């Protein structure tokens, strides 16, 4: 059975604006894909530890004995859709009182 998912909720969490046509198409496709992905639940793995990374390393610290130049501000901002006074510019986030 295809998995039923709340596409609107997931799209909202993912910050994806979808058209009505996309919403319907993705609902059907994701249901079928998840049905296949759900097969992982058939595997008995109660006592198996999870793997997040195939070649585990711990406490990898960067050696900063040999410092290097960081990206200049102009270059960091060069690709910005909008910038002002050396900063990225976005629409208002907090309403004025």
């Amino acid at each position: 059975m295809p998995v039923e998912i709340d596409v609107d909720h997931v799209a909202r969490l993912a910050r994806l604006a979808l058209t009505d046509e996309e919403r319907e198409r993705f609902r059907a496709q994701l249901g079928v894909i998840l049905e296949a992905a759900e097969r992982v639940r058939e595997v008995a793995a109660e006592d198996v530890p999870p793997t997040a990374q195939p070649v585990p390393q711990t406490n990898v610290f960067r050696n900063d004995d040999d410092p290097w130049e960081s990206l200049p501000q102009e270059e960091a901002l060069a690709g910005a859709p909008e910038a002002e006074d050396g900063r990225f510019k976005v629409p208002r986030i907090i309403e004025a009182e």
Partner: protein
Amino acid sequence: MTELCDLPGHELARMYRAGEATAADAVESCLRRIEAVDGRVEAFLRVTADDARERARAIDERFVAAEDLPPAAGIPLALKDVLCTRGVTTTCGSRILESYVPPYDCTPWARLGEAGAVLLGKTNCDEFAMGSSNENSAFGPVHNPWDLETVPGGSSGGSAAAVAAGEAVWALGTDTGGSVRQPAALCGVVGFKPTYGLISRYGLIAFASSLDTVGTFTRGVRDAATLVSAIAGKDRLDATSLLTEPRDLADGLDGGVAGMRIGVVREWLGEGVEPGVKAAVEAAIERLGRLGATFEDAALPHADFALSAYYILAPAECSSNLARYDGVRYGHRAADAVDVIDLNSRTRGEGFGDEVKRRIMLGTYALSAGYYEAYYGQAQKVRTLVIRDFEAAYERFDLLLGPTSPTTAFRIGEKAGDPLAMYLSDIFTIPSNLAGNPSISVPCGLDEKGLPVGLQLLGRHLDEATVLRAAHALEQDLGLTARPPLVEEAA
């Protein structure tokens, strides 16, 4: 006639030093081939002809001055468009990065540039490396040089096709679930994915960080060894890169397979595998047997669940990694947003294509409250079981063997409407990504349609040498000479 662009890199390197050819000649040869065929293959998104010519001239001056240069010096190469190149637009095959010009180089290219390699341009790929056919690029599909009506595979389809067509001598791609090996198989070239962590991911635009691996496209195994050796090694800009001794993997390549114990993954030669693929792989097993390798069947009991686990883990990591495309710092921004959420959502809705949206949503769902343990947590455990299967197999075997892909190149459009059918293209390549072990796809013949078949050899962690040695032995014994019709016509 064979043009310089059709020669292996190690032969060009010899000719440069013997004064028989120059890097400028080789670059011109590639540019002529691009001019002749890329209108049909469409492997490149951008060709950096002027820079390439200038760079080749500078390298030639150093050869003339009898400088001792690394093997990569003067070799014309292409980079998949997910690898950042300073000052050269890098799109990931996506509208959202259509005008993105990176302010820095990825480490693999930085190292190759330092070694004197010449960048020809950036190659097309599935959007953000998500796909198995290159049809998910926002800038149109790539055509397989062996049959222009078929796909080159993906996601590194442009890099594979460019090397197959002689448009580049070498190319780099990335392999998250098979995106180097599968297109290499479908285009009849060598595709090598080394151990996770051997090559720095710095400047590789992230899809799934625990799986993403830089890999190589070459027309021979010796070149794969040389190219990987040139870019391998610890990078302080990637904490997951491994501290390994610098070594030339081309050393010991001629050692042969006598006494090597090879496990055949029998399930990978069963149902769903095309007869032409099965026949070519079985013939290759016989050859390797004659060369002195011994064979037994190997069991990977959980490999059957690897695809399911992958389609939870990779989307989960992608949903997190691709959160950065928010219309704020770089890339596309939706016009006239009323607030920041609206800006983020519409930017992403407009900028991403279907497959990327599907995977972001899959990952978001698998990580969301109430589903995390059942999906993501469980998939991580299955990943452990897949790794244990490999560990058990490598107690008995030096290498594992199977086909790279269940099919040869399929027709453009054939699977485009069915994401799940497309995902099955990577069924034999995904386990190596989950385990992080080195794997290579090496051409082993043609099917009845005249399309290339790839054989996959899988090795132990950091045992690139054995994988390459066996691949080289097979390649030398096969001595394949067939070239894509398009190359025969252009050469």
